[in-house]
């Protein structure tokens, strides 16, 4: 019964979104106000049916209704209710259903907020969103149907993947990832609308940029949460392995970040419109490619992915979206006439261009390294992978250049800068950079790349702090305001976008420094210990006290108790272990981490035997890792600062006078 109701809702969502897409395109072409009203109705109805289908599935998961195929697949009576609920995104069909909820939410909110704005663009944009929604409804109706009927109804199910049950971060990571991934559909629709109408007016850039920034914030948090989860759960002591699944989330982040920068140039100078739109479309295509790579099982084997229909279906959608994007760009890009021209001297504009070039370069190297094994296997039937050194060798120089650029760009004036100006702008930050590298060297940093990174970080920190405080200081001097008043006026009321951007930069600098230090300055040992024996790691003493069995309702755990001390001072007990889940033959390792701002002590059990009292221990000191998570928080905060007040303050677009005059003259 539940299954049939669910199938009905999915079919309704498919019909509503398809009809809405058709009506939307027609309304856009005919500039029909009533057609646009009808399109909005379809958008809201699509969102409502998707939401209803999700509520139905959550209820089935909580009630352990095993007559629904997805519940029979991932549900279990032995798991706690929170695990049952988050099982919604623990497997393929459920995650696509959840995807439908989010795309419905995005489409409804984006439509509602723009219902009275941009009447020439919005029907097209909504039509594109609904077309994407229709595709996911189609996946749910066919290849990834979560509401299949199961008969006879099983008494119990296997439960979700144990790795997902093993840590709380798995509750929050996937929703953020979906919010980031799916959210890129909105700017894609807006960019398509701009190309379809042949215009990218100044008033339309703001929604494009803001709707790009929102999923960018989610994606940033999601990528770091994923790394954090890997770090806390997987037990190999790292947070990033250039795994295809990780790259899939990183690729659209790179192009989205590039697009946020080029959009700024478009906004200020009226130039690079086609390029900005191209980056926005590429971001969406990369999210679909990422969906294909992670959802089709293609990385298990090129030849096995056709076993489920979902891989080829997503591939067809990717091809359609690619043709749509290339076709629109080819036919319409010259209509997006630049309003202003770009003066490229040694000024800030040039740095924006270099920034975009580096981001695109980064995207290509990661994309090639990720897809190369697939192509080789498809063509020559040889299994291989591209090793980590390739990615590191490519990523480090590009990343370090971006770090430096993040300081050089904002330090330079707009327009053509004289070499005298350039020297003056860069001298003080360069001093700060040398100072930072010298301190790092004195503290024992010897890796050349880490020293360079920390030096550049010093440079960029100086510029970022100067740019953050400059308006504040000016205001206090010019208006005689107190610190609090000036802070509010300069950073929040007026320059909130600027403030937000520099806060994001500050977070990024911290992330760069933390990644460089944690990946080059760690130490580790692997030892086999008997009860009572002690291992030494750096200044730490690790005493294996005992191994024991712990029974929980849904799992059995083998836990090693390791007493940690440093210089004779007791630091408590860490308990790395192995969790054995019901219906799973192999145990899942669970590391235990003692986190501090300075360094993490990371213990991972390789083998535990309570009977003979032995422990195989992998112990690591990972310096500064906590700062990566903190940096992500700062970046997200900066993004929110840039985004949130925008709707409350009806700022006038800041076109430069010359550009504004030309726009006015064109009528």
């Amino acid at each position, binding site marked *: 019964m539940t299954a049939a109701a669910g199938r009905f809702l999915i079919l309704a969502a498919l019909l509503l979104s398809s009809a809405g897409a058709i009506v939307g395109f027609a309304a856009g072409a005919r500039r029909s106000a009533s057609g646009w009203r009808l399109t909005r109705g379809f958008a809201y109805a699509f969102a409502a049916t998707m939401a209803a289908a999700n509520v139905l599935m959550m209820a089935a998961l909580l009630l352990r209704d095993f007559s629904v195929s997805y519940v029979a697949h991932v549900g279990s009576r032995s798991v706690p209710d929170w695990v049952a609920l988050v099982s919604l995104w*623990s497997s393929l069909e459920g*995650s696509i259903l959840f*995807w439908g909820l989010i795309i419905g939410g995005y489409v409804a909110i984006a439509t509602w907020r723009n219902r009275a704005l941009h009447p020439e663009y919005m029907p097209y944009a909504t039509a594109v969103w609904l077309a994407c929604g229709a595709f996911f409804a189609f996946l749910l109706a066919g290849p990834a149907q979560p509401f299949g009927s199961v008969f006879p109804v099983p008494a119990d199910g296997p439960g*979700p*993947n144990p*790795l*997902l049950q093993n840590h709380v971060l798995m509750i929050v*990571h*996937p929703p953020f*990832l*979906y919010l980031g*991934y799916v959210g890129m559909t909105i700017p894609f629709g807006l960019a398509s609308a701009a190309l379809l109408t042949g215009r990218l007016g100044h008033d339309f850039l703001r929604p494009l940029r803001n709707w790009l920034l929102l999923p960018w914030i989610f994606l940033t948090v999601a990528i770091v949460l*994923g790394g954090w*989860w890997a770090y806390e759960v*997987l*037990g*190999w002591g790292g947070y990033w*392995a250039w*795994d295809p*699944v*990780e790259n*899939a*989330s990183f690729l659209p982040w790179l192009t989205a970040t590039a697009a946020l920068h080029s959009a700024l140039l478009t906004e200020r100078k009226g130039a690079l419109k086609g390029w900005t739109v191209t980056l926005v479309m590429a971001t969406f295509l990369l999210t679909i490619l*990422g969906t294909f790579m*992670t*959802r089709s099982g293609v*990385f298990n*084997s090129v030849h096995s992915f056709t076993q489920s229909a979902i891989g080829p279906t997503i591939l067809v959608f990717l091809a359609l979206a690619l043709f749509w994007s290339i076709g629109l760009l080819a036919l319409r890009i010259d209509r997006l006439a630049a309003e202003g021209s770009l003066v490229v001297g040694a000024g800030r504009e040039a740095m924006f261009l270099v920034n975009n*070039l580096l981001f695109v*370069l980064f995207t*290509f*190297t990661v994309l*090639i*390294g990720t897809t*190369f094994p697939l192509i080789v296997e498809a063509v020559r039937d*040889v*299994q*291989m*992978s*591209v*090793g*980590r*050194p*390739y990615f590191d*060798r*490519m990523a480090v120089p590009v990343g370090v250049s971006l770090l430096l650029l993040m300081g050089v760009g904002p330090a330079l004036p707009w327009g053509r800068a004289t070499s005298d100006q350039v020297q003056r702008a860069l001298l003080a930050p360069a001093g700060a950079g040398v100072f930072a590298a010298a301190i790092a060297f004195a503290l024992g940093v010897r890796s050349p790349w880490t020293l360079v990174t920390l030096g550049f970080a010093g440079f960029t920190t100086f510029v970022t702090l100067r740019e953050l405080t400059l308006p504040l200081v000016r205001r206090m001097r010019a208006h005689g305001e107190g610190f609090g008043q000036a802070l509010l006026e300069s950073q929040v009321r007026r320059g909130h976008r600027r403030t937000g951007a520099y806060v994001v930069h500050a977070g990024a600098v911290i992330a760069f420094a933390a990644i460089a230090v944690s990946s080059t300055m760690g130490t580790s040992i*692997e*030892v*086999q210990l008997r009860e009572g024996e002690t291992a030494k790691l750096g200044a730490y003493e690790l005493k294996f006290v005992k191994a024991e069995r712990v029974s929980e309702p849904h799992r059995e755990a083998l836990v090693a108790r390791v007493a940690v001390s440093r210089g004779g001072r007791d630091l408590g007990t860490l308990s790395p272990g*192995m969790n054995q889940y019901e219906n799973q*033959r*192999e*145990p899942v*390792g669970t590391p235990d981490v003692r986190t501090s701002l300075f360094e993490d002590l990371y213990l991972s059990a*390789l*083998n*535990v035997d309570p009977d003979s009292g032995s422990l*195989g*221990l*992998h112990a690591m000191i990972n310096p500064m890792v906590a700062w990566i998570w903190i940096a992500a928080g700062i970046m997200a905060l900066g993004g929110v600062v840039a985004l949130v007040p925008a709707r409350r303050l009806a700022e006038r677009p800041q076109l430069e006078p010359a550009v504004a005059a030309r726009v006015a003259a064109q009528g």
Partner: protein
Amino acid sequence: MSRGRWAAIGALAAAGAALLAITAGGIGQNLVYYWGPTELHAAGPKAVGASIRLGGLVAPGSIRKGEGASHVEFDVIDRPGGRVHVKCTGVPPQMFREQIGVVVEGTMDKAGYFEGRRLMVSHSNEYRVPGDGEKVDVQKAMRSTQGLDERQKPQEP
């Protein structure tokens, strides 16, 4: 088209070609091959120094543990006659035992043994020593290996 635009296109093409050359070289030097003992022997001297994921079964009676159990030696087989001796430093994982599927990351030493850097236990269910004319499906074992699974964050878009 203006001369400036041609120059820009030329510069972009040159940059693209350079990028392609660098990435192709970078990939070529950093490939990791997924091989069983049979493919390893077939590769001959090419295997020495290359990055390899060696998959197969731990041969019965071949495990020798060194002092402190942080050194282990064993043979990996994938069919009768397809056998490679593996020397591995590091603590073996929980499930490691005879006749279990393993994947070893490492390279072939000139002396004719496989130098393992990382030892992982496979999740595949086939633990039967291959008889005449049989061969272990190394690729299948490879796919179900703990090492692959643990890095792969499951169930994300």
